[in-house]
């Protein structure tokens, strides 16, 4: 059974038809071809499918696609700014080596993004707490935590310079 769905995805209004049993993850990957969001466990344990829904981190594997109606969804593809410029969080992950196999990275980046929207200068404890729902089986957590600390300071200094920022890349 199909139904119409209208929502905002990465800053643009999307109107599409979805299967009523599709999860948001199915819509993103199979329906819209946005394969940055990964399916790890499919049960809300690993966080590889983390996206932002109205600025809050959620598991796209535990949300029905139709529940996105009238909401604002942001995926890892939506963090990139004009001209393909990576967001502060993405640059920090690159600079700190916060990725090994890379499968958990989009989810880690989205959880980090959600945290920094809420708290621009999080303690290490808060960073670790925010990553409770994101598993890295290469166990590269140390670099990931360092990347988020760096991202926080990058974002703060960019905000301080009054830069145009990451247009379309925020929350």
């Amino acid at each position, binding site marked *: *059974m199909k*139904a119409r769905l209208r929502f905002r995805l990465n800053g643009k209004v999307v109107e599409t038809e979805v*299967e*009523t*049993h*599709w*999860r948001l993850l199915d819509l993103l990957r199979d329906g819209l071809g946005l394969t940055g969001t990964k399916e790890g466990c*499919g*049960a*809300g*344990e690993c*966080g590889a499918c*983390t996206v932002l*829904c109205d600025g*809050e*981190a*959620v*598991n796209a*594997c*535990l*949300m*029905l696609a*139709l*529940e996105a*109606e009238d909401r604002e969804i942001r995926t890892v593809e939506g963090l990139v700014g004009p001209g393909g410029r990576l967001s502060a969080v993405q640059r920090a992950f690159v600079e700190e080596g916060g990725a090994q196999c890379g499968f958990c990275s989009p989810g880690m980046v989205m*959880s980090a993004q*959600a945290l920094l929207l809420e708290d621009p200068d999080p303690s290490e404890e808060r960073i670790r*707490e*925010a990553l*409770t*729902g*994101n598993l890295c089986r290469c166990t590269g957590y140390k670099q990931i935590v360092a990347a988020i600390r760096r991202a926080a300071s990058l974002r703060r200094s960019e905000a301080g310079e009054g830069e145009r920022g990451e247009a379309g890349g925020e929350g």
Partner: protein
Amino acid sequence: MEGGLRHRPKTLDEVFRLREREPECRLLAGGTDLCVQHRGRLGETPLLSLRRVAELRGVARSRPDLPGAADLLPGGECLRIGAGTTLSALLNETEIERGFPALRAALSAIGSRQIRNVATIGGNLCNASPAADGAPPLLVLDAAVEIASREGRRLLPLEEFFRGPGRTSLGAEEILAAVWVPLPFEDEVSVFLRKGRVKMDIAIASLALRCRRGAGTLSGLRLAAGAVGPTPLRLRRTEALLEGASLKDCGLVREPGGRPRAREDGLLARAMDEASKEIAPIDDLRASAWYRRRLVRVFLERAVAEVFAQ
């Protein structure tokens, strides 16, 4: 009937009408349990989402104007928590931060940020897992649940809501609308302790304690344990043993390392024995019944020590 998300009503009246027409529909709140339980079969599961029902969300001080309220919530003023309120929203409530430390500790132990951002308190209770972390602290707070149907609303003590693993007292046409929690006393203390394998894991065992400090004694003591029986359990016999006890009665001493210890001849040691008889844990993939009994004993020892330390 075809599965998937069939309905997204905005009012409870619509919910009742739709359920009358399509009783096969399962109610979907946050979906963090349901989507896992029906993983790969969502196409065969007809669902009715409650996410848009605004009247199910929110926290407010209120006086219950419902049948039975005078007996079940005798204090009058309460916190009314809408069943559809997310765990993250509850953790952001200053009222809960200030007045209900055990509830707050339990809610923050549930799942991950991603889960808490969508999971609801009503879903946690209606899923009726014996390990539901929301249940023990609400049981010790003497919470009551507000159940709604087309016929009207009724109140039920939370303890009577749980009937077995995955089973509640909700009738086929009923829905959990809210949880009512009496406001805390000035000298109220509450503690929640749990053990999981890792932080995000389901509890192996948990214990909630609430009491008033009175004149250095445990008064109005309530105890409840999770994951050690077919439902979350109030430990009434253990409560009765410890009611009115002073620190001296309890026989709590500090070991050289600073860890509190119940002396064998003290009241607390007897209460720990009673608690391990009062629970009914099973062996499963998470832990043995033996280990769960040990955990509840140690939790009780630590929780009582914490009350006297506060």
